[in-house]
């Protein structure tokens, strides 16, 4: 899914600091950090639907707030649960928790790789980002104007 920035989804999600969020109008030419330093998308993990509950993470249709994008608030494959507002389905690999109605929500980058996730940068390159990346760098990578340059 696409990256909304480094913050959680609050109120109406209109003011996030990434490129992809509710009613975002940012143009690729106008990303202050540069496209090669800004995450556009990443893998996330979802749980297969069961008869009793649907995992709404990553859905674009018939979804719920905070489920359309991910945030670099927490590092890749964090054990800290995704914060979902409705019908969470949690597993060890893809932990989630149901938050109070209208509380901050957000998904974090996750994958089936042991040590990181593949992140699509704005210039079209794909980087493998380690779980142990400095959280402050990862958060800056999620923003369109964090002022960071990424070096490994």
């Amino acid at each position, binding site marked *: 899914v696409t990256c909304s920035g480094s913050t959680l989804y609050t109120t109406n999600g209109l003011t996030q600091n990434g490129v992809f969020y509710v009613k975002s109008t940012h143009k690729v030419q106008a990303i202050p950090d540069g496209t090669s330093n800004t995450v556009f998308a990443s893998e996330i993990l979802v749980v297969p639907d069961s008869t009793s509950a649907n995992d709404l993470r990553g859905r674009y249709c018939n979804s719920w707030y905070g489920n359309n994008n991910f945030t670099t608030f927490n590092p890749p494959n964090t*054990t800290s649960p995704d914060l979902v507002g409705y019908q969470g389905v949690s597993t060890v690999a893809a932990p989630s928790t149901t938050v109070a109605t*209208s509380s901050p929500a957000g998904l974090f980058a996750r994958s089936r790789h042991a040590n990181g996730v593949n992140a699509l940068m704005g210039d079209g390159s794909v980087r493998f980002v380690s779980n*142990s990346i400095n*959280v402050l760098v990862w958060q800056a990578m999620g923003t369109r104007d964090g002022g960071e340059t990424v070096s490994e």
Partner: protein
Amino acid sequence: MFVGLVTMVFVAVGCSDARMHEVEGTVTLDGKDLREGDIVFTPEDTKLGPDAGKIKDGKYKFKAKPGKMKVQILATREVPGKKGPMGTEPLLEDIIADEYNAKTTLTADVGPGKTKFDFQLKKK
């Protein structure tokens, strides 16, 4: 170059599972076991990400990095007889006070021999 090498070694050690500690303990709310919830340890060192686990029947157990942590405990319940903004889904409310999550005052110092942490919470 030397500095870079030292940093790399430090990072490699920092993320290896060997240094993770299995932390465990109990969580009560007004003296009763917290039936279901989440517990998150966030290092005071903001370069490091959080570690978290599920609380089930008042108990938790998960692997955490060593160091000084802010501890957050999350749990919600469906408000009986009320519906959320769409009118069909349950309205959910926090049952844990802000001082234990959003503005937490709970801490833990994780290290060798320091892995048991019990939290007695009071209703908001």
